[in-house]
């Protein structure tokens, strides 16, 4: 059967009203940067400029930290816990109310398919606020002693792959535990964070409890190294994570949590239902264009079913629809930036040069914007760079194994340890594998599942600390 033709089904942009320029959100107000610097954020699908964004320098970061400190000392820390919770419930509700607007904006600024921003990012962000709202006045039950205390001011730096969702993962637990925050969104995806600032205003959140400073790496570094913050939370690359750990080495009182890169193994055993496994493999690596730290970027297939799985996988890749992120039928959207596209191209070229076989389905790429087709590499060995390094794109490296022990050996043969997938009908094997995989999350017969009640985070060089669930509260409590 050939590919079904679909009529375009674009989600309307009219729900979003963009301003020409956005300031920093400090002390409850939008304000220009001190030195007037600004940068542009574009749609990666069309390279259209969406808005001009203030770039926070060290003086702006300092203002934001001061505002957060004042809010912490004057209002937030003294507020009864249940009232703190009620603010978070309000925020959760407003995120739900403005869900479609946020979804369209996220797809515009990030390039991800509207189906994903609408059905995954935004509902999960709202759920994260809902979940943590309830914790605010129940912290004594969380297992950290009878009266766990907040840390103070949190400096948070988040990536561009799930902009609003990562914001929620950072801000919701911080506020629930009684901290105030200064958050820096990624320079390529600042827009939903700035709408979130408006949401804080609509919720009448006391000024300074949430501050948003936009900018690039320098802004982030100014934030995490600022002596006025008590807590650093970073999600992003392992390289930057290590630099933050070094920067904070001389500030031992700063609590640091890092959620970094990954190179997850998605392990398919011979008794796995092939169609279900193939859906999981596709979801594991092509969800969000593979811009997912826990993406299943290494497929480990048991030798006996290798040809069956590969044939089914190639067939399935042929049906993926790449294109306009705002089209409701789109499966694969745009690569988030020119820089990221260059990195994906470079590592893919290295894969070919090192002897792996590259394959993509016939796939027409739009002329404007940043695009990369879903790509498979077979004949990959563990020594290849595409099997070791995080590509952070829609590129899957396929390896094989014979025994469960060999699968564990290969899966763990990486400096990362964020996630893993296991596909088999045998429950005991799932649990045997789970206990041996050195990864913070193991998905069995599913992949890329997230829930506010479920802790997420890595082993080894995928970082330390957990986000979500009862365990995630620890990152924002003085324990």
């Amino acid at each position, binding site marked *: 059967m050939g590919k079904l033709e679909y009529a375009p089904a674009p989600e309307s942009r009219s729900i979003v009203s963009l301003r020409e320029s956005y300031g920093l959100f400090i002390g409850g107000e939008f304000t220009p940067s001190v030195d007037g610097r600004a940068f542009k954020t574009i749609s990666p699908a069309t390279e259209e400029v969406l808005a001009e964004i203030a770039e926070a320098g060290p003086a702006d970061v300092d203002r934001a930290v001061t505002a957060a400190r004042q809010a912490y000392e004057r209002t937030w820390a003294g507020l009864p816990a249940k009232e703190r919770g009620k603010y978070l419930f309000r925020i959760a509700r407003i995120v739900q109310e403005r869900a479609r607007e946020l979804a369209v904006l996220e797809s515009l600024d990030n390039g991800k398919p509207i189906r994903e921003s609408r059905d995954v990012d935004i509902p999960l962000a709202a*759920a994260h606020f809902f979940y943590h709202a309830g914790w605010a006045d129940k912290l004594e039950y969380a297992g950290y002693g009878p009266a766990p205390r907040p840390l103070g001011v949190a400096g948070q730096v988040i990536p561009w792959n799930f902009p609003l969702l990562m914001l929620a993962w950072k801000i919701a637990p911080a506020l629930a535990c009684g901290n105030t925050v200064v958050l820096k969104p990624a320079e390529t995806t600042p827009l939903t964070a700035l709408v979130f600032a408006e949401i804080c205003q609509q919720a009448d959140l006391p000024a300074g409890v949430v501050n948003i400073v936009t900018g690039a790496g320098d802004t982030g570094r100014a934030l995490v190294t600022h002596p006025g913050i008590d807590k650093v939370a970073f999600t992003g690359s392992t390289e930057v994570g290590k630099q933050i750990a070094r920067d904070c080495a001389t500030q031992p009182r700063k609590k640091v949590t890092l959620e970094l890169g990954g190179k997850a193994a998605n392990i398919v055993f011979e008794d796995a239902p092939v169609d279900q496994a193939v859906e999981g493999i596709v979801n594991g690596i092509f969800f969000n264009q593979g811009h997912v730290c826990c993406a299943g970027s290494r497929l480990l297939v048991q030798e006996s079913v290798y040809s069956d799985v590969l044939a089914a996988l190639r067939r399935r890749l042929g049906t993926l629809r790449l294109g306009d992120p705002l089209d409701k039928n789109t499966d694969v959207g745009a690569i988030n930036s020119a820089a990221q596209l260059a990195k994906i191209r470079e590592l893919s070229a290295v894969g070919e040069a090192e002897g792996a076989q590259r394959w993509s389905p016939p796939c027409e790429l739009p002329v404007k914007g940043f695009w990369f087709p879903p790509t498979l590499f077979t004949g990959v060995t563990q020594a290849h760079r595409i099997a070791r390094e995080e590509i952070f794109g829609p590129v899957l490296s396929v390896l094989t194994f014979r025994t469960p022990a060999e699968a564990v050996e290969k899966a763990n043969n990486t400096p990362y340890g964020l996630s893993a997938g296991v596909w088999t009908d045998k*429950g005991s094997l799932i649990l045997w594998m789970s206990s041996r995989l050195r990864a913070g999350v193991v998905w069995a017969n599913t992949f890329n599942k997230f829930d506010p009640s479920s802790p997420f985070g890595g082993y080894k060089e995928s970082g330390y600390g957990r986000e979500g669930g*009862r365990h995630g509260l620890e990152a924002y409590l003085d324990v």
Partner: protein
Amino acid sequence: MSDTATAGGAARLAVRKTYKLYIGGAFPRSESGRSYAVTDHNGGFLANAALASRKDARDAVAAARKAFAGWSAATAYNRGQVLYRVAELLEGRRAQFAAEVRSAEGLGARPAEAVVDAAIDRWVWYAGWADKIAQVRGAANPVAGPYFNFSLPEPTGVVAVIAPGSSSLLGFVSVIAPAIVTGNTVVVLASERSPLPAVTLSEVLATSDVPPGVVNVLTGRTAEIAPWLASHMDVNAIDLCGASGALADDLAAAAADNLKRVVRPEDEAWVLTPGLDRMLAYLETKTVWHPAGT
């Protein structure tokens, strides 16, 4: 409550509400056709409330049982949202509830408002527990063998509640919310002397997202109805909050026939944030073993 208002010189007669039962999402009168006069704190007439019969109680249990499968299978996140929605709607009717609590309990305006505020916040508090009680109460158990072993709380089933006599709204909310947030369904006998805020609350439940039958509200004589609930073989737990002395002892004895989980509270200060007791009373613990091996 003022029954007349003067507008433009002409007196307007208020339209009074009929206070009925709340069973399976509907508002029937008692099948017995009976009612009883409810008075305010000074003995003044407020309204006639339905005087529930044994059959009403049994209908309510049947409705609660019917609703149990769906409600207990709803995700914890969903149940939390539904309870929070009740708080939102209650906030919108704050003045109405304050007036009802005032006449029911003889409170001043400010204390009555404080009671309503506490009742709203109590819904919010319990709403937040929906997706947390399993995280506080569940466990992965390190058994000495190649097994994955975990324990999870599950709702016990249909909970009968004899609501407190004195705290007509806050006490009422404080006894039903812990039962439903944990996935149980409820048949509640409202305060005999002050049932009206409970009936009005059932109107809030009916227009919120709480599925029909999850909460069923009876009004009537505690001594007449409570024994039928306590001895009902399809009720899994009973809260004897609103019964005392020999009646409570008799109800507890009747509850033993099918080993209902019995909650027999001491005097309670409803304004204080509750503990986990009432939620835990209505939760079973299920432990699952699964081998781990190749």
